[in-house]
Every structure is written in C-alpha cells, then in structure tokens.
C-alpha cells in the first residue's frame, strides 16, 4: 500500500546543471515595456506577467524510445484598468510589435467592459518586499536525451521484470522542466524567480491468466524540484507493477453501506474539494456548500489544516501570489473549526475581507491530526470491515450542494485485512457530512503535491454495485 517515504537519492540521477533560462533582466525589461505602454495609452493601473519555460520529456515503451519531446514556451499577459474598468490580453510572441499590440488589445477591451467597484490591483501595503524568503526552488537537471532514455528504460524494465503477469506497458516517462516567471504592476512591484520540477512515471498493464487475460492498468510517479530527490527508477517501476498486480481478480460487491478509507493520493482530492468550497469566487457567487461557515466546525476536533507557503523546495512554495501579495503561514482549520477563506484581492473586497495572498491558489496545504499518529495498517484495523478506495473516476462532485457520487475501485477489507480487490462500483454521500463525520486521518503522508495529507477514514457511505 502507498506510503509516504521517498527513497534515498539514486546514484544514477545526475545533479545540477547550467540553466536554460533567459536572463531575469530580459523578462523585467518586457514587464517594464508593457506597463509603460499601458500608461501611455491612458490606463490608470496595470499589471503584467511574463513567463518562459524549457523542458525535455522522453517516453520509452517496451524498451524502445517512443517519444522525445523538446518544450520551450513563452507567455506574456497584461491586465489594464481604466478607473474600475478592466481588460486583459495575452500572447506567446515576445517581439516588441506583438507586445505593444497585446497591450492595445487589453486597452480596447477596457473601453467596453462595465465598471466593477471591486476591481483593481492589490493593496500596495500587502505586496511582498525585499528580502524575499529563499525557497530553494531552482535545481536545473543536466539531463540529456540519452540519459533520460536510460532512466526510463530502467524504470520500465523494473516494472516488466517484476512478475510474469505484467503483459504489456504504457511506458515510462522522464521529464525535466525549468521556468522563470516575472510579475510586475504599476504600483511598483516587480518580482520573479526561476523554478524547476522534474518527474518520472511508469504505467504498466497486467493480464489475469485466471480471467481470460482480462487487462488492468496502473501507474506510479515521483516528482520533485530537485532530481536527486526523485525516487529511484527501479523503485518507481516496481511500485507501478505492485499496484497493477493487486488489481487482478477484482470483482464487484453488492450494494451496501460501509465505512470507506481513502488512500493519501485520493484523500488529497477531498481536501481539494474543501479548498474549492472556501475559495472567494465560490463564496461571493454563493455556489459553495461551505457558505458562511468561518468560525464554525466543518471537521471533527482532531483536524488541523495549515498553509505553509515558504517550505524550502516544496512544490507549492511561493514568496508572493499572482498579484504580488506577500504569502504567509496561516491556519485554515484549527481543532476542526474553519479559520478563514482562500481569497485574492477581488473576492476579498466583494466579501468585505482582506486578501489572504491566494491569487492563483494555495501554497502547500498541510493536513494533520491532533490525535495520536496512526499508520495505514492501524487505520485498516480501526475500519474493521469496509472499503479501501484506491481509484476514483468521473466528475460527480456538485460544488454547490456537496453531493458526491463517483466511480471507484479498491479493496474489500474484513477484520482489518484486505480480502479481495473491488471494481465497477460507485461511492456516494455529501461532502459536508463526509467532512463532519471524518473518523481518522493517517500519518502516511503523500509529499508529492501542493496538498500534503495521509489516508482518511470516512464514516459509512453508500456503495452501489451488483
């Protein structure tokens, strides 16, 4: 079953490399040109972001190279304000005529849009100031195409060699990615930083000799800002193989009500629904199942959810948000009680609140429990008889009502022991109730994403099946 431990760094992965990015000053200059042109055209306020990214990805299937892809993307976006009227435009073309044309397009739009009393730049007092925290986000990887191919081959070979029932493969992929984003606005803010993100994944297929060769597929991946901290290729391959093999022999179960355990990578999705429901946009549109719930208990009292934007090397780290507002540590849930919302300047003004530095999203959400730490096996034992969900399918989540109904696969558990894999069922409930009656959360934390949490044991849900 999934655990959260990253394997020790693999010796086969090369270390840092020279950067493929343009000079920061070049992007600063473009932002300056955009803001100058907006002012010249009469904008009272403006903001701009310019981005560059460079990447290489390689996939290998059945031991042979399948794709070799070089990525290099440029972007440039501007928003102008004429009083409280707003217009936006963007392009991939950095050349001066295109840049000037883009600013003009944004200004043209602002002639037609309606006054919006809540629009405008962030409060200057909230902008991030030097010195910005050092977040250690930039670790270029000197990965040549040949090295990438070797890593992907090793990874896929470990999966295919794991068991004779691994019958086919969707391949293994390796990618390195490096980017530089600069944001500036007419209140004098100019900030930017380079960052990297590298990944390795493997997806294999197993055929069940006991079921007429019926196929199942599963995968595993590792991702980090620093390639030396990726899981080793053979470990990723083996994990993909283990995950697909455990699906063989899956069957449906009868319709019933039973407790459900979400593994960490799926529990993260539940936290995502929570974050979506406390987002400013959902609140001011009254399209959230957690409307007006600040100060009230939305989870049991063991639940603690914090945002930690300055964790070194973390995937969600940022010194400032998409409007230049300084990010800071904050508590979203303490002892089960909702402490505040996820706001940018616009939604904050509409709600009569202050921005929380979340323009563009959250930055490292850490989910914890004040109850004594319990591992995955203890959660299974606590559940006794119920369903472990390892895969969810479809989009059956209603953000307005919290109604939840999704396709699922996993394991049926009796007396704390997995009995057999399960497929082609649905699980259903309502998120409000699922959160309020959450039973336990595990210490088996998945560190790979912007939301870090362990397994979650939920009170009984409706399972529809045969």
């Amino acid at each position: 079953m999934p655990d959260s431990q990253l394997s020790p760094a693999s010796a086969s992965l090369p270390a840092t490399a020279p950067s493929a990015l343009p000079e920061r000053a070049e992007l600063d200059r473009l932002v300056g040109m955009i803001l100058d042109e907006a002012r010249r055209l009469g904008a009272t306020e403006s903001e701009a972001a310019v981005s560059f990214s460079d990447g290489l990805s390689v996939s290998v299937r059945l031991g042979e190279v399948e794709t070799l892809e070089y990525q290099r993307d440029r972007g440039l976006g501007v928003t102008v304000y004429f009083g409280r009227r707003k217009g936006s435009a963007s392009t991939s073309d950095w050349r001066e005529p295109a840049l000037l044309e883009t600013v003009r397009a944004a200004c043209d739009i602002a002639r037609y849009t309606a006054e919006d009393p809540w629009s405008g730049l962030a409060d200057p007092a909230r902008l991030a100031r030097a010195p910005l925290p050092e977040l250690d986000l930039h670790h270029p990887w000197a990965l040549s195409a040949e090295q990438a191919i070797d890593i992907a081959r090793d990874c896929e070979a470990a999966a295919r060699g794991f068991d004779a029932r691994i019958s086919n493969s969707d391949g293994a992929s390796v990618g390195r990615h490096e980017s530089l984003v600069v944001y500036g606005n007419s209140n004098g803010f100019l900030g930017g930083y380079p960052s990297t993100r590298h990944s390795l994944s493997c997806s294999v297929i197993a055929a069940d000799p006991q079921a007429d060769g019926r196929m199942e597929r599963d995968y595993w991946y590792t991702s980090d800002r620093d390639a030396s901290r990726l899981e080793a290729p053979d470990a990723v391959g083996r994990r993909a193989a283990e995950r697909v093999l455990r699906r063989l022999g899956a069957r449906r179960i009868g319709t019933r009500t039973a407790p459900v355990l979400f593994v960490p990578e799926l529990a993260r999705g539940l936290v995502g629904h929570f974050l979506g429901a406390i987002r400013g946009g959902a609140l001011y549109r009254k399209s959230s199942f957690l409307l007006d719930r600040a100060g009230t208990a939305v989870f049991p009292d063991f639940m603690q959810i914090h945002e930690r934007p300055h964790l070194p090397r973390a995937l969600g780290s940022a010194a400032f948000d998409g409007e230049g507002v300084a990010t800071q540590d904050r508590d979203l849930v303490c002892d089960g009680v909702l402490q505040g919302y996820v706001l940018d300047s616009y939604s904050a003004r509409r709600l009569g609140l202050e921005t929380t530095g979340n323009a563009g999203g959250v930055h490292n959400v850490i989910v914890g429990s004040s109850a004594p730490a319990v591992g995955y096996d203890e959660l299974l034992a606590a559940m006794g008889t119920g369903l472990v969900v390892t895969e969810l399918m479809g989009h059956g989540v209603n953000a307005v009502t919290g109604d939840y109904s999704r396709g699922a696969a996993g394991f049926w558990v009796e007396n704390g022991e997995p009995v057999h894999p399960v497929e082609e069922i649905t699980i259903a409930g309502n998120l409000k109730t699922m959160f309020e009656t959450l039973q336990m959360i595990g210490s088996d934390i998945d560190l790979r994403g912007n939301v870090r949490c362990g397994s979650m044991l939920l009170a009984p849900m409706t399972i529809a099946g045969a």
Partner: protein
Amino acid sequence: MSTVASDVPAAATGGGSALDLARALILAPAGLDEPRLESALGTLLGHAVDYGDLYFQVRRAESWSLEDGAVKSAAHNIDQGVGVRAIAGERTGFAYSDELHAPALLEAAKAARAIAASGKGPEQGVRIAGTRPATALYAPLDPLGTLSADEKIRLLEAVDAEARRQDPRVTQVMVSLAAVQDAILIAASDGTLAGDVRPLVRLSVSVIVEHNGRREQGGSGGGGRVAYGYFLDEERALGYAREAVRQALVNLEAEEAPAGTMDVVLGPGWPGVLLHEAVGHGLEGDFNRKGTSAYSGRLGQKVASELCTIVDDATLADRRGSLSVDDEGTPGECTVLIEHGVLRNYMQDKQNARLMGMRPTGNARRESYAHLTMPRMTNTYMLPGAHDPAEIVASVERGLYAVNFGGGQVDITSGKFVFSASEAYLIENGRVTRPVKGATLIGNGPEAMKRVSMVGNDLKLDLGVGTCGKDGQSVPVGVGQPTLRLDGITVGGTKT
C-alpha cells in the same frame, strides 16, 4: 433582441481556398514559402526518419464574461508557432517554436530528427503540393469580428435578463461568450500540403437558484464552427438561458437518487457522452496498435447489441467536432465504428494506421502546435433505431431516466467507464415520476453496450459544448444519440 447580419465570406468552394487563406494568414507574415518548407522537411528527414511534418498555427481567441448582470471582464489571446515532428517506426521526435521564421524552423527540425538512430543522414529532397482539396465543412471566417463589442455585450446582457425573468428564485447568472479562429497549415514529407481555417464559437450559461435555504445549479450552452450570429438566430442564446433555469429548478425538487443496478433510459443528444466513453476512446488507433484497449484485437467481433450502429463523423457541416482536414492534412471522414453490434473500424492517424497496416481515417488531432498528434474523436454518435421514445420509457418497470450529464471518464485498458447525470428522474411502472439528484453511472464498455435493448427513432446531436481530454490535451468534440435503454447498469445514488 436585434438580429445581426453576419457579413461573412461565403464558404470555401472547391479546393484550395482554406489553404490559400491559411497561407496568407501564416506563411506570408513570417516570410515563409513552400520552397523553405520543403527545405525544412529535407533537413528533418535523415535516412532513418520515415515521416516528418511541419504544423503551423496562428490562433486568435477572445472571451467575454458576465456576472452580477454586467460584463466586467474580457480577454484576448494570440498564440502562434510551428511544431515539427519526425517519425521513425514507433518513435516520434518532436520540437516546436513560438517563432515562425526560417531559422527557428530549422532549429526545431534538427531537434526533432534526433529521434532517429542516425540523425545525420543525407538530407532528402521533398516536394509538397496541395493536391487533395478537401470539401469545406465550415466557412473560413473570423468569428471574433462577426459582432461588434457592443453587440457582444448586449447579447450577454439579454441572456442574463432572460434567465432572471424566468423565476424569482434565480440568484446568480453567469454567462460567457468565446470565439476562436484557428488557422493551420500542414506540410509533410509524404507530399501533403494542407490548410484549414477553423472558426469556433461557444456561449455558456450557468445559474444558481435558491429556495428555502436550498441552493442548486443549472447550466446550458451551445456553439459550433459558425459566426456569433448563430446565437441570435432562432433566439438560441435565450433558449440556453431558459434551459439552464429549468434544470436548476428541477434540481431544487430532486430527491436522493437510488443506488444499485437497474434499467436506465438515456435521453437523446448529450447523453451520447456514453458512446464517447464506453466505445469511442477504446477504438482510438494508438491504444489498439499497442494492444492496451479493452477492444484490442476485436475487429469483426460482436462488441455491442445488434441495435447499435455507431459512427465518428467529422463531415457534419458547422459542428463543433467537425474537421475539413485533420491535423495531418487528411480530409475528415465519417467512419463506421460499430455496425449492428460488430466492431468495424478504429480511428486512425497516419502513424498508427501505417503501423497497423490500415488507412488513416482523418482522426489525427492535436491541441496546438506545441502538442503531439494523436488519434481522437470528432463527432461520435449512434444511428437511430425503431422505437418511439415514449415506448422505451414505458417498457421500464423501475429504473432511471437520465437526460442531462456532466462529464465522463474511461479506463481504456479495463474498459470501465463512468458518466455523471446532472438531471435524472425515477421511472416507476413505466412512467417518469420524481426528479432525483445527479448520480454517477458506471459500467464496462463492451459489456454495457451489449445491454442496449432498445434504440429510439429520435437521434439528436448535442448543442456544441463538448471538450475531450486525453493525455493532457483538450480538443472540441461532438456527441449524439437517440433515446436508448440499457439493461442493468450500476447507478451511484445514496438511497439503498
């Protein structure tokens, strides 16, 4: 609302016109011409590269959105670039540039050909020509300019007013209007030179209604490869507003949905997302070439009930999923996927067709120049059957009648698919009775399609809002079907 005449150039007639326009929009401003493209293709082809192509794109897009009764935000985007692909057997090398001039093109071609065992082979001579004029299925117009900014704003405001006029319980109305003009030009080492200018417009309405502390949502919308005037014709946009409110009000009354296996009747039109998930993806050439689809190796076999004839049809005029030529320059086709229950064809691009010894079917698609081509669906639908829809509902003793859906998803390999109803009713003793909350339906593609026991005579296509995602790439698609009955499908409600 006043109707606006669209002063749009007439649809391209005969071959070459979309290609000529694509040349003018893409090559001329970049100072490129056919000899330069031939030279770049020559650079691409080392002796181990057996196919290469250049995909030029200039894409202009805009969106306008309304909330609180006013259009307060809008955005404009221009994206352009060239993608260069080199194929050697099952290997693909790919690079792209957001610059369209000749040096960038050569640099990308050199990067892409590194895929071949020997990228340093002699450069080959390539000749390209626009020899396969495709039938134009839509006018090569620029939809962004087919209404003035004031007219677009008035359209959005009229939709808002229409939604609010329907019922005092409407508390929020959000409307968005978007248009794209996508000009592409493809030059390939097999001599292909093709161009297309693809317009696409969309209008979406989403409403929230509130009553006695209960809130529900409803949504509707539509569009196609047409000018904005489409939304003014026949009061289409106002119709979307009325439909969104109607759905939301139905959901205000909805009770818990049943859980378990039961007979389900799917309404006509958008519920065809069933076919997209349960059948379509599993018949894309790449999965079948690799043997990773639940439908792999099953050509000529019975994979659905004999009532089912399912096609993928790129050739419908003005539809959201239609393509005059696909993203490799192959003319769009109507491909029979399943005929009376028997699997007849896969959907192919050039690479997978060649590797499987089959023919490309005009299903090569890519999100943009910066993405690799894959076999994808266009407009996928089931042909009508013999039954009156009322007869189909009347045949079910206890079951679910589902008429609107959100999205769906499929696991190609196991064949498991889901799709989520957003408007559904109980069927009790052959009659549609109470509305129930949205619920996910789950099944296994080849098994579920064998349980299609009745097919209606009321084929409808969706209104033109579908977007399909595969490997992180989004492309516009269409779906459709007549009313149909599925015996024994699992319905994921909460009531046991």
